[in-house]
């Protein structure tokens, strides 16, 4: 299964690209202006006026970004009632999922742990989109809640460096159409 760009990823990359080009443009303009002579008093006056607005803008963006993010935290809450628990065990260099398949539309709780070192449970949907990840840690169980609606074979790749065969440590999980 090959990888494909997911919609959220494309949107985020586009926002980043726009900001990066904007910043590059700003630095280009400042660089060009650096050759001219402007009284430092004027640079101070205008610069500090602008800096206050820049600070306010960053604060507003920060409050909005953090605030909105709180509505979409991936952390599982409450008990697993109503969910199908899939026990995920990682080890050098394998994934074990029990059960290995669920019907489409199932609310799944992946109960993820490791028998040896840290691994990363990266779940790719049947179209090759990375839909989320959680760490597999020795001595701990991380719960990841997902609603899997799309039938097909989901691929698991290791998203935490775990040794020699890290890049070939993959597994699969099937969502069966109803």
């Amino acid at each position: 299964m090959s990888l494909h760009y997911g919609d959220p990823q494309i949107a985020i990359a586009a926002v980043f690209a726009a900001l990066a080009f904007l910043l590059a443009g700003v630095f280009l303009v400042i660089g060009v202006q650096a050759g001219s002579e402007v009284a430092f008093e004027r640079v101070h006056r205008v610069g500090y006026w602008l800096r206050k607005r820049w600070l306010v803008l960053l604060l507003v963006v920060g409050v909005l970004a953090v605030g909105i993010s709180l509505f979409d935290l991936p952390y599982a809450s409450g008990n697993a009632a109503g969910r199908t628990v899939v026990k995920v065990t990682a080890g050098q260099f394998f994934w074990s999922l029990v059960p290995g398949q669920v019907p489409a539309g199932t609310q799944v709780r992946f109960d993820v742990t490791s028998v040896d070192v840290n691994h990363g449970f990266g779940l790719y949907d049947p179209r090759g989109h990375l839909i989320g990840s959680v760490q597999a840690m020795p001595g701990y169980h991380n719960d990841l809640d997902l609603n899997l609606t799309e039938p097909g074979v989901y691929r698991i790749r290791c998203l935490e460096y775990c040794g020699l065969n890290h890049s070939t440590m993959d597994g699969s999980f099937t969502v069966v159409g109803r």
Partner: protein
Amino acid sequence: MEAATAAPASPVIHPRAAAFTVEARGIERRIGLLFAGTGIALVALLGVFGLLMRLTQATVLGLSPAWFYRLMTLHGAGMITGTLLAMMGALWYVLHASVPLRTGRMLASYALVVTGALCVLVATLFGGFGAGWTFLPPLPFYPAGQWPVWSESLFFVGLLLVGSGFFVYCIDVLEQTTATYGGLVRTLGWQFLRGREDEAPPPQAIAATVVAIDGLLAMASGTAIVVGLLGRTYDAGVGINALVAKNLVFFFGHSIANLVLYLAAAAIYVLIPRYAGRPYQTTKVFVAGWAASLVFIATAYSHHLYMDFVQPTWAEIGSEIASYAAVIPVAVITIYSMAMLVWGSRYRWTLASTLLYVGLAGWAIGGTGAVIDSIIPINFRFHNTVWVVAHFHTYLMMTVVLWVLAFLAHLLERDSGITSSRAARAWTIGLLLVGGYGLTGTWFVGGALGIPRRYAIQPAGTSGYSLVGSIFALLFALGFLACLAQLAPLARAAWKRRRHVLVEHMDSWTGTRYTRPAPRAEADPSPAANPTPPRRGVPLTGPAQLGLGLAICIVALAAFFPQVVDASEASTRYHHLDHAGHFLLGIMAGLLLGSTPAISRRLGERPTLGLAAVLAAPVLMMLVMVPRFYEPLERHPFEHALYHLAMASCGLVAGLGATRLGLVAGRFAAFLAVGMALMFAAAMTGA
């Protein structure tokens, strides 16, 4: 305290800058060259290894996964060490004029860091160690047949040495800045912020102090976990709490990588004004910003644990806030202020100044990529993809590496009085920009595609990204070489002109500018010109503080009560916590004794011995907590009691040593020693 003489107008710096630029002393130039030269050599070597890795991912080369991960481990550890070393030199170079940092300490720091780097090099290339430079426990102990025990141990010893070198540096900076400016509160400019003083220390001194404090915190965390892992190397009975260990590793690793940038920031506060011809001075906003950085540098690290869902949710959200908040001082103060200095300044474009300016953009762009990734729901889809590789390479390659080159170029330009041709600079900067952003661009795109990081073998159909990335990496390497090629003639000219400088003059009749050699106005090398500050003090001053110390000692005595000792046998962690109590008792007793005027006078100054004690005693204390070492000592209750006394003795040595480091650094060193004992107790469990 600007003791050095003002520099004559140099043709390479801005004419207005002569008014506020001090002439560099010989020792500053030599230290700067040593650190920058070694740093660049490491960056060049490890850059080649990075290219080999990218070519392997592109399937152009056929490195085995075992070799890929050896190189990956070395590349990460070595790049951080190389850039750290260069930026330590840069900060020393710009700070020494106003703060009398000790040359001996700096050379000791160099020896420790370089020896540590050599240990890491041998452990990876010859020992095969390949657990990554973040060595997430317990991975080092699951080698999959790839590395022997000695290479693990050597890697950890190497890290300890590098960390000790940085520790020595940070202690010296903290000791000397606080002694120069009269205590921590004044040094950080907080008295100025509150309007109680009209003047604040210069920007580089405030920034250096913040870096030193956060650096020491990070080193304490790193030392606690690395000593624990070293113990585990020799005793499989030592268990590790994976979550606590991960917190400690990232507190150390993230902070140290981040601090390279902040070290560099402190240096550019001095370097960019020299090309813009405008001084950069401390303002209240600057002080407030660095106070915020002091907190957020130390707390942002845990965004590395977003996907460890067992980490308390409040900690994850706190980390998200801290990660964003850490950006604000950088964006509003450092980058913005430097851009303000440059705007309309008739900026002197030289090789160094161009690299300095271009590096600002790298921090802004790479930082944006990092901030995006620090939003938890976004991180859920980008965690440990190559997006992470993209953003940290943007500010490490396109900022830190460029500033390392800029620092060396600045040293050579100042000494030679010349810079490279405009065409050569344009080609070089062009190659660096296209190559650098092209390479990181392929990672950004790959991250959006979900390509995992640290894959020796890329997922099917994605090696093309690595191929394109390799081509860009080659362009960057060409730019790097072109830069070095331009530095070579500057170095030759600097060597020829080491006894004089070129001074720019203007013909008053014709208005034309010309240069003429003048004898180098070497800054006054006498101790009187840059005296060791007199106020050092001891950690506990006055009856109230001595009384408090005594009270803590009495409370800590509880760690020896048989009931407490018996109860602590319930788990390894509690037992280690009890040992931390013994250690605390020793430290407080050492602080009390060493702070008592009569004993303090008898002990004498002995700052080097004090530093050695605060470095070695906590490490020894943690090492003897390894069961294989202490079990033979616990066969009899009397031996067991003696063993606990040994813990307290280690603390006593550390406490006495701390009193030789002055009031601020001494208190801080004692606090860190106790902190290390507690972190060790939290991370190490039974088998």
